[in-house]
Every structure is written in C-alpha cells, then in structure tokens.
C-alpha cells in the first residue's frame, strides 16, 4: 500500500528522498574520512615501534612556546646509565639539507643519530648496514639513506659505496632503508641518517634535539618516562622537559581528529535534518491530497491506527530507502575519494552505515508522526466530502 503510493508520485518521492540521501551520504563520507585519518595516524605511530618514549625539551602541547634545546649527547648516556640500558638511547639532531649526487639533488631531512636508532625504532635496512658506535666516535662521514632518496639520486644504480654531498660535505653511503612510507607528516623514505657527531659539526650545533627510548615492556613505559625526566630535571633544574609515549600522542591526535569528525558529521547531520523536514512537508501535502482516500478507508473500516501506520510507513519507507541510497553513495564516495587522493584515507567503520540507516529510519518516524497522526484523526464524513 505504502509502496504503491510512493510509486504513484515517483518524481516527488525521489526529490523528497534526495535530502535524506545527501544527508546520509555526507555523514557516511565524513565519518569515513575522519575514521580513516585516525586509523592512518594510529598506524603511523604504531609503525614507529613499540613502547616508545620520546624526550623533548619544553612542553609538548599545542600552543606552548617552542623551546630551544639544551640537551647534549652526554645526557643520552646519563639516561642510559640511569635506566641500566647504556647505548640504547637514540638521539636526533635534524636539519633540512640539500643532498647531491652528480647532477641530481634533493632537499631532504638530515638526521644526526646514533646506533641505538634501529634498536628503538622499526627501521629495517634494504641494503648495507646502519651507523656504528665507531662512526659516531670518529665523526666518520658516512650516511644511510631512504629508499626514495636512493631512487631519485641514483636512478636505480647501486648507491652503496658511492659518495654523496650533504650540505656541501661528502658522505659515503653505507646503507639504504627499506621503504616505510611517511609518518606524522615526515617522509621517512627521503631521509638521510648520519652520525650525530658529524651532524653537530655539519650543522654547527653541539646540541641534541631529542631522545627516544624503548621500554622493555608496556608495563615499564611509565618507569622509563619518569626516570628519563628525573635525570634531566636533576641536570637542568630550571628547564622543563616532556617525555611522551605513543599512547599520549595517539590520545592527543585522536581527540583532535575525533572532535573534527564529530563536528563534520554534525554539519552533515544538519542536512539530514533538513531532509527530514522535507519529508514531513511532503507527507503533509500527501495527507491533504489524499483526504478522500483517507475518508474512504475509514468508511470501509480502517481504524485510526491503520491510517496513521500507513502514512508513517510511507514516511519511514521514504527515509530508509533514501538512507540506503545515501549509504551506498557514501560508501562508494568514500572509497572513490580515498582511491583518488592519497591524502584522504577513508575507512568505513561497520557502525557508520548501521548508524546512518538507524538515523534515517528515526528521521522518518520523527518527521512522519505529525502528518500521519493528522491523517489518522481525519473525520471520515468531512474527509469524504472534500473535493
């Protein structure tokens, strides 16, 4: 019955649905992008390694003042000793530099590091070897380069043993990283790792940007964090340092992305609401148009609830069909977007279509109730007399 009525006014039904279709599709797409972004960040953060603690100067908060680092290489040793894991504190001092080989050049991040890096982070090598303790001690000019950089500088030739110019200084390539993709905005396939001591001389900066440690287990993350901070507080009483864990990074980023997703979905939800108002409007028109039909149905025995239910069903049918189309469009659109743009990872969480469908059905009920009740309450005598 309800289907017949909707089919009879096919164009009108379709246009009415459109509001719900667009609303649901928008919600699904935006939630998919938000979820995808969050997922991507989680993958990247977890891809760095497990149980990481990263120590940086200053406070690591949005809006806090950038802090000049006063950390030095010796501090890494002190922290290592305090934690009883000497030589397992990774250090970094980075700067953007131009790297050249022959006529090819690229402007990339150059990291001064130490041999602890492969123990702390997941940085598998494709070829060659990583920096050794002796390279740091002797300030040897050797470099490990990312796979992307190897490709662009050497055009497929073997980079091992070749000499590249880093910021005008010649370094010998001793290793090439495996491809790992980018992480938190850093393109890790276009990095160069050189001994921290060589970097300090190259950049003219005797300090260290940050430390990274790996706790032996998840339970010990907090201990490691506290000990590292205690060592630094002892040495630099007037300074503030932050030691962040992956969970903290994920928590912060996740909250921001979650908020963003909610706001976007809410904006899309408004269009769903507008779609619902459209449904309500059309149902009111429909009740008026079909007053005689309602009168007739009541005359031949339809009860108030039969009529109410019929119109409510029509409204819910409109919105749920619209909802299903919207979900299909939304899922298709999300997948299409993420296929077309690398920067837009879209993940369809199982709950988002379910929620969208439920909401569209609820919109039908909510916005259908008023017209449906009006229809049900019509007096058959009056309704039959209507022209």
């Amino acid at each position: 019955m309800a289907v017949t009525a909707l089919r009879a006014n096919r164009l009108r039904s379709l246009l009415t649905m459109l509001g719900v279709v667009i609303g649901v599709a928008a919600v699904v797409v935006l939630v998919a992008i938000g979820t995808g972004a969050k997922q991507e960040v989680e993958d990247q953060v977890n891809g760095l390694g497990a149980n990481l603690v990263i120590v940086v100067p200053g406070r690591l908060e949005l809006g806090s003042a950038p802090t000049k680092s006063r950390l030095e290489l010796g501090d890494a040793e002190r922290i290592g000793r305090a934690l009883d894991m000497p030589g397992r504190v990774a250090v970094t001092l980075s700067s953007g530099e131009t790297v050249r080989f022959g006529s090819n050049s690229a402007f990339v991040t150059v990291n001064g590091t130490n041999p602890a890096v492969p123990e702390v982070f997941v940085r598998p090598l494709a070829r060659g070897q990583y920096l050794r303790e002796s390279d740091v001690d002797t300030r040897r000019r050797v470099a490990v380069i990312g796979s992307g950089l190897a490709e662009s500088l050497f055009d497929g030739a073997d980079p091992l043993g070749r000499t590249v110019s880093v910021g005008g200084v010649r370094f010998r390539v001793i290793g090439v990283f495996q491809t790992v993709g980018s992480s938190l905005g850093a393109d890790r396939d276009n990095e160069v790792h050189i001994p921290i001591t060589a970097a300090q001389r190259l950049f003219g900066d005797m300090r260290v940007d940050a430390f990274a440690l790996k706790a032996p287990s998840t339970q010990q993350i907090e201990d490691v964090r506290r000990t590292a901070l205690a060592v630094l507080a002892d040495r630099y009483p007037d300074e503030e340092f932050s030691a962040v864990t992956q969970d903290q990074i994920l928590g912060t980023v996740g909250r921001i992305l979650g908020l963003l997703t909610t706001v976007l979905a809410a904006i899309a939800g408004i269009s769903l609401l507008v779609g619902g108002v459209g449904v309500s409007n059309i149902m009111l028109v429909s009740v008026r148009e079909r007053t005689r039909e309602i009168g007739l149905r009541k005359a031949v025995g339809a009860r108030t609830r039969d009529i109410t239910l019929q119109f409510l069903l029509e409204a819910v049918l409109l919105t749920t069909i619209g909802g299903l189309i919207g979900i299909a469009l939304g899922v298709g659109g999300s997948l299409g977007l993420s296929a077309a743009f690398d920067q837009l990872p879209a993940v369809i969480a199982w709950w988002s279509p379910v929620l969208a469908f439920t909401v569209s059905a609820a919109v039908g009920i909510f916005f259908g109730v008023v017209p449906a009740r009006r229809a049900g309450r019509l007096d058959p005598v009056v309704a039959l007399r209507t022209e």
Partner: protein
Amino acid sequence: MSAPALEAVEVTRAYELEGVTVQALRGVSLTVEQGDCAAVVGPSGSGKSTLMHLLGGLDRPTTGVLRVGGRDIATLSEDELAQVRNATIGFVFQAFQLLGRTSAVDNVAMPLVYRGLKRGERRRRAREALERVGMGHRLDHRPAQLSGGEQQRVAIARALVGDPQVLLADEPTGNLDTRTGDEVMGLLERLNTEQGVAVVLVTHDLDVAARARRQIRVRDGLLEPNPTLTPTPTPTPTSTTTPPEPRARARRTRGSGGVVPTTPPEPRAGRPWADGSGGVVRRAAP
C-alpha cells in the same frame, strides 16, 4: 435475521458551524430490516446526508440511540465502530470514490485489508464480488480505464466484498446518465432480491426512489409521514433486464416535499415500520 440491520430511535444531530448551531436532524426514528429496500428522499439540506452518515456509522447522533448491526454505537469506541462498519455496511458513493492508481480488483479488496485477511484471500473474494456485479472481465483495469457505470459497479463490488447486511448508497446514480443509472439500479435491486442484502438509497431523483420498496422522506431534519409518492409499497421491478424507461432526468426535487401532507402522525413506539407501511415521523417539537 432477528435484529434489524439498522435502527434509529429519536436521533438528533446538531452541528456547530462558525458558532451557529445547525440542527440537521431533529428527531428521527426508523428501522431498516434485514433484506429491506428503502429510498431516503428529500431536498438538498433536508438532512438526508446526515441521516445516511449516521445510519452508516460514520457519525454519531447528538441525542438518541442508533444501532448498527444490532449494536448501540454509543457504546463503541472509534475503532470498534470502524470494525462494525467494516462488517455490517457497504458504502456506495455518488462519485464512486475509487482509488485512481489501483486496479479494480485491489480497489474491491481494500476493505478486507482492515479485516486482517491475507492478500490471496482478499483478491479471491474481490474477484468473486466483481463477478457478482458483472465486472469479472475487468479485474486489472484502473478506474480511469472504465466507464462511469463500470466504475460504479466496481464500487458496488467493493461495498459487497465484506458480505454486509446493508448497502448504503448515496446518490448512486447521480454521476451517471439515465441508462447507466438504470443499470446500476437494476444491479442494486437484484442484489437486494436475490441475495437478500438490505439496500438504503439516498437520492433526490424520485424515479430512482420509486424503484425502492419504500420511501423515507426527510424534510427539515424530520421524517415525513406516509409519502404520497408511493402510498403503498409498489411492486418494485425486480427483473434486472427491465428495459430502462425513457425517463426525463428532470430533477423533481421541489415535488419531493411540497405535496406531502404535514399532518403529524400518531407517535408510535416500537418498530414503526414493522407493518411495512412506510415512514413514520416523530416530531421533536409540535
């Protein structure tokens, strides 16, 4: 066959129209027995439509008692009344009131939806009803594809499909030409005589009214006594094949009331029409 199909006792109906109270019915008592065939006649505004709505259980009296299918409708809720209508009454309207986008068979099956029957059973009964009115060959046609007479036949089939005790026909020939009107009347008469369905016609066409076994005249919200049009129940033409008389479609509405003597009848209690003599008026005010 014991209880009368419809019974009105001292029924009044008043409307509020923009603050003014309109007395549509001032005190009407009548009985429609099972298998009865009566025509309600009267000029426009006489209250015959109101009477029709009351008899059909579409409306409730302001005062008085109305029994539909033996049940006092004052004791029924809206929903119960709807079910009583569904089981007892078949409505035939002047404008047919068919659903435009629905086939004949589904139009006819519609009342059975509210009886909770399955679709297959509904359609089976609807086909039967359409065959009874001679429309068995037009099952899947839509109203727009049917002539006026055919549409009214479909509407009559819809009224019949629930096996009602009474067919209430409100100007059933009003939208039809004389010939088709005659055919529809013939059909109603046949249903009445052959199948025992009580028929109550509301009309202001006296030629149509004359074909009923008795006439009930309404004027100014009251029944008029013993109509002069048919002093005794005339033998109604029962044969459906009676060729339609070449009647002029003159609307003798003025004549319907003007010639009637207004002497008030002796008020009688009980079944006023038990003797089959005709209408009885009980005036609300002298």
